[in-house]
């Protein structure tokens, strides 16, 4: 399996699974306007997943397209981070999950625009515009809730306490990254992490939120070792293709 295929799958699966999670809010948003905003974000993410997984299929060259990759893999073949598969919880939890992710995705796509891989660079350029808006949306909500009422502050602080342990996996690297780094396809993740840390620090400061002092980290998704949530997500995501193979609508 090529490093490039593996890398694109990681990016694509993050978009796919987070997009699926956000789509679960459809019709359940706290207010009509926010319901539409979250559904837009879900659609953006699923769109990114479509571009990325289709490209992964091309790179692989075994006749699998984006749909086959999205709907017909087993859980250990999905390489998304544990963060994106975490349950929606309350609105604050969803927003915090999205913020931690957006703050990483924006610098990631900024750097990937300059990738020596033309297709990846084009996908990054398109996705960056969407991601900038997602980050604006999620950071403003983190600030509103953190610096809002006593209850909203407490709830979003709890969300941060729960989700913080999953944030380090966004910067997971192994031989896949080392190979692509040497080929000029990606840049050093340390630069992306540095930018993420600044964004996170500034927003949490304004939101009067405390970064948990417990630095215990939970990782595994990038290697296909998922939390129990993944089975439930895939059951819903894959049901139609598994029950009615090759159906289209």
């Amino acid at each position, binding site marked *: 399996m090529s490093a490039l295929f593996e890398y694109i799958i990681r990016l694509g699966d993050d978009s796919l699974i987070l997009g699926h999670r956000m789509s679960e809010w459809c019709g359940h948003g706290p*207010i*009509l*306007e*926010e319901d*539409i*905003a979250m559904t837009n974000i879900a659609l953006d993410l699923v769109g990114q997943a479509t571009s990325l997984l289709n490209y992964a299929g091309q790179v692989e060259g075994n006749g699998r397209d984006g749909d086959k990759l999205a709907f017909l893999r087993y859980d250990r073949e999905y390489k998304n981070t544990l963060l994106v598969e975490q349950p929606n919880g309350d609105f604050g939890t969803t927003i915090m999950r999205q913020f931690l992710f957006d703050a990483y995705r924006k610098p990631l796509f900024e750097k990937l625009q300059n990738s020596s891989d033309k297709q990846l660079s084009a996908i990054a350029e398109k996705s960056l515009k969407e991601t900038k*808006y997602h980050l*604006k949306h999620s950071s*403003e909500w983190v600030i509103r809730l953190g610096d809002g009422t006593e209850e909203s502050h407490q709830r979003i602080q709890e969300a941060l306490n729960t989700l913080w342990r999953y944030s380090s996996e966004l910067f997971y690297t192994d031989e896949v990254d080392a190979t692509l780094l040497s080929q000029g396809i990606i840049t050093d993740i340390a630069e992306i992490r540095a930018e993420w840390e600044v964004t996170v620090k500034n927003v949490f400061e304004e939101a009067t939120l405390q970064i948990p002092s417990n630095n215990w980290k939970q990782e595994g998704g990038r290697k296909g070792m998922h939390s129990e949530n993944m089975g439930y997500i895939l059951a819903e995501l894959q049901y139609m293709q598994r029950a009615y193979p090759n159906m289209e609508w």
Partner: protein
Amino acid sequence: MSKKEWPLWEIFIRSKAGLSHKHVGSLRAADAEMAVENARDVYTRRSEGISIWAVESKDVYASDPTEADSLFEPSDSKVYRHPTFYDVPDGISHM
């Protein structure tokens, strides 16, 4: 769920450069910034616009419907205010 609702905002969208902003509807938002963001999501998803104005509904001072007679009817009988008494020369299109 709290019964307190966020303020109502009137949304105006400019569909393309050179055209004026047109009223498209209203929505709720906690402040102006959120109003513009919500308007982006609610009213420009299908490339409807390139610029958004949000005005809090309470700041709109409107004419009184019960005064419609005195405000608008007098102009109905003044056809000479419309440029309909001119002969349009041949060759002028798009009039």
